[in-house]
């Protein structure tokens, strides 16, 4: 306990410096902005801002990027409540009851409870990260290559289950992502793999190109091809602060949502997306009168909003302790860290304690700032939402172009991104999701490295993955998750959750 406090004290002493406070605020502000704007998410934004962070000290860079990520969760809910369009994937469920509350003249209360719930979740998640970091790092040191490979496989299994649509298609996307990650020089022998003599491919397919193509431009293409009914709430937003009755109703859902989101967020394989869905389903089940849900039940906003924020923050745990990025945003963090010569993993905490605890402490400060950014400034965001999409999307296109060009100062990257985007668009039309592909790509190199190392150590004995207990348990978990998802009964329920 006392070490926890001394760790946090170290963290706050780092985070409380003027430049770091400024970067944290900037990150939260940008995060809220892109969260509010539908059609551009944290993946595209962080890719775009990566070159900017090259000139910053590593702590500052990570503090800012982290702020963008959890700030986007706040901003996403604003759009969900006011426009009935999820600003981010994680705020899909918030559209159900949040927008209904807004239509009943309680937009302010919905926004207020979302912000308060998120703030509570952010505080708890910060403490959870701080408390779990040390023990998990110890566990990580016991991990050999077989365990790492098994953990990543289990994570990919989760990613498959959490993706929408056909399981088989998701598996195919994970495999395609893994396959793409093998392009480039082989790590052990240096042999060129599938580069076709293109020099820029020898370092591998650029992650920024893939992320920006699939999540920046392809997103714009998708949005243009569907008619979007924008339903901006007109009239007054109403009081922002929930009254005593609202608070009483929301307190328990906020606590439950926070815990659920925090636990699911730790799972490798983008568990953060699952949190809000699970929380919504739970609240509906626990409610005395489930029919209120979908008609503006405040619990349906409080729970999921807390869950998505908690999940966004605890998803830092696998990255900081095991060195495994659980989702695409965390993979970009890996990029930001390696540029500064920091290898993500269990050693970060001992070698760079001020970075580790500084980033964690900044999350708490960031949540405080987000409360200020979101509630008093709500008028600014509402005005922003009134910018028509016909102007918004060309602006997104040009900013993404400048961003992807700046990553390597290469027009070739921009060209390649255009093609990736067209492939991404075609994939969507065929019912393929981009998220599992990106996660497969992110984990591919690490997975291959550990797989080959484990096989080399065991001299080609495949049973090593099931005779080592930790590895066996991890693989079994992944397998159970997959089997359960394929079972007809559960599958129907899963679809139900996503349809809702």
């Amino acid at each position, binding site marked *: 306990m006392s070490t926890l406090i001394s760790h946090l004290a170290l963290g706050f002493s780092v985070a409380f410096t003027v430049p770091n406070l400024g970067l944290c605020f900037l990150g939260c502000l940008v995060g809220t902005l892109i969260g509010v704007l539908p059609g551009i998410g944290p993946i595209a934004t962080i890719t775009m801002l990566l*070159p*900017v962070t090259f*000139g910053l000290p590593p702590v500052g860079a990570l503090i800012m990027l982290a702020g963008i990520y959890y700030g986007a969760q706040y901003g996403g809910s604003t759009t969900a409540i006011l426009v009935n369009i999820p600003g981010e994937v994680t705020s899909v469920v918030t559209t159900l009851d949040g927008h209904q509350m807004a239509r009943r003249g309680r937009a302010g209360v919905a926004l207020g409870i979302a912000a308060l719930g998120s703030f509570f979740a952010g505080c708890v998640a910060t403490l959870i990260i701080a408390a779990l970091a040390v023990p998990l790092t110890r566990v990580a040191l016991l991990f050999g290559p077989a365990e790492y490979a098994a953990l990543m496989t289990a994570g990919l299994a989760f990613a498959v289950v959490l993706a929408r649509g*056909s399981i*088989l*298609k998701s598996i*195919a996307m994970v*495999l*395609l992502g*893994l*396959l793409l990650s*093998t392009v480039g020089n*082989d790590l052990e*022998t240096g*042999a060129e*793999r*599938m580069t*076709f003599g293109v020099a820029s491919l020898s370092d591998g397919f650029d992650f920024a190109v893939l992320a920006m193509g699939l999540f920046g*431009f392809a997103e714009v*293409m998708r949005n*243009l*091809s569907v008619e979007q009914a924008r339903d901006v709430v007109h009239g007054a937003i109403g009081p922002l602060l929930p009254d005593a009755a609202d608070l009483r109703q929301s307190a328990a859902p906020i606590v439950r949502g926070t815990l659920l989101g925090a636990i699911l967020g730790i799972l490798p394989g983008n568990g953060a997306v699952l949190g809000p869905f699970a929380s919504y389903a739970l609240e509906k089940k626990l409610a005395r009168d489930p029919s209120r849900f979908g008609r503006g039940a405040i619990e349906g906003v409080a729970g999921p909003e807390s869950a998505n924020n908690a999940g966004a923050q605890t998803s830092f745990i696998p990255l900081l302790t095991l060195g495994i990025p659980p989702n695409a945003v965390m993979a970009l963090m890996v990029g930001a860290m390696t540029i500064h010569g920091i290898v993500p993993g269990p050693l970060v905490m001992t070698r760079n304690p001020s970075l580790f605890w500084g980033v964690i402490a900044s999350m708490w400060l960031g949540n405080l700032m987000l409360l200020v950014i979101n509630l008093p400034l709500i008028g600014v965001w509402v005005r922003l939402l009134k910018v*028509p*999409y*016909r*102007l918004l*999307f*060309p*602006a997104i*296109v*040009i*900013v993404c*172009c*400048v961003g992807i*060009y*700046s990553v390597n*100062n290469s*027009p*070739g990257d*921009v*060209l390649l*991104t*255009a093609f990736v*985007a*067209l492939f991404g*668009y075609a994939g969507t*039309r*065929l*019912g*393929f999701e981009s998220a599992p592909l990106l996660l497969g790509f992110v984990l591919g190199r690490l997975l*291959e490295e550990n*797989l*080959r190392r484990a*096989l*080399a150590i*065991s*001299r*080609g*004995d*495949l049973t090593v993955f099931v005779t080592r207990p930790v590895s066996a348990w991890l693989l079994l978990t992944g397998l159970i998750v997959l089997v359960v998802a394929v079972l007809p009964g559960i599958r129907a329920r899963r679809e139900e959750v996503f349809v809702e």
Partner: protein
Amino acid sequence: MRKVRVRAPQDLVAGASLVAVSLFAIWATAPLAGGRLGAPGPGFVPRVLAVLLGASGAGLCLLSLTRAGEPLGRWPLRGPLLIGLAVVAFALTIRVPGLVVAGPLAILVAGAASPETRWRELAIFSVAVTACCIGLFRTLLHLPIPVLVLPGWFTL
């Protein structure tokens, strides 16, 4: 013999494209050494992945004959192609003559992707956004983006 009916055209096309990608990858990794299980070579993992990918593609094709699913649906092309074209135009003009031209050009081409576009409004908007980009990325963030480059005459 009963006539085979495709019950999920979208899945059939999806599966077939996966098989195509898989075959391509198997062909592309053919020169790489596979190694043994105890000493996996550079071609080992990619080839395993390609085969698994092909298998899932084949599975999708088979399922599309037995299980009803989505139709292939509409493929609106105007939007995606124009967005792609806008990005390509940006890539070709960013080095020479620079963002001053590449910015408005990309915005105007992208704007054609939406039927709601009002041209006069977009023209003014494109200049304003480009100015903002120069201010933000070049002046504020010091990124080395070519603003205006006229070879042998002028560079900014």
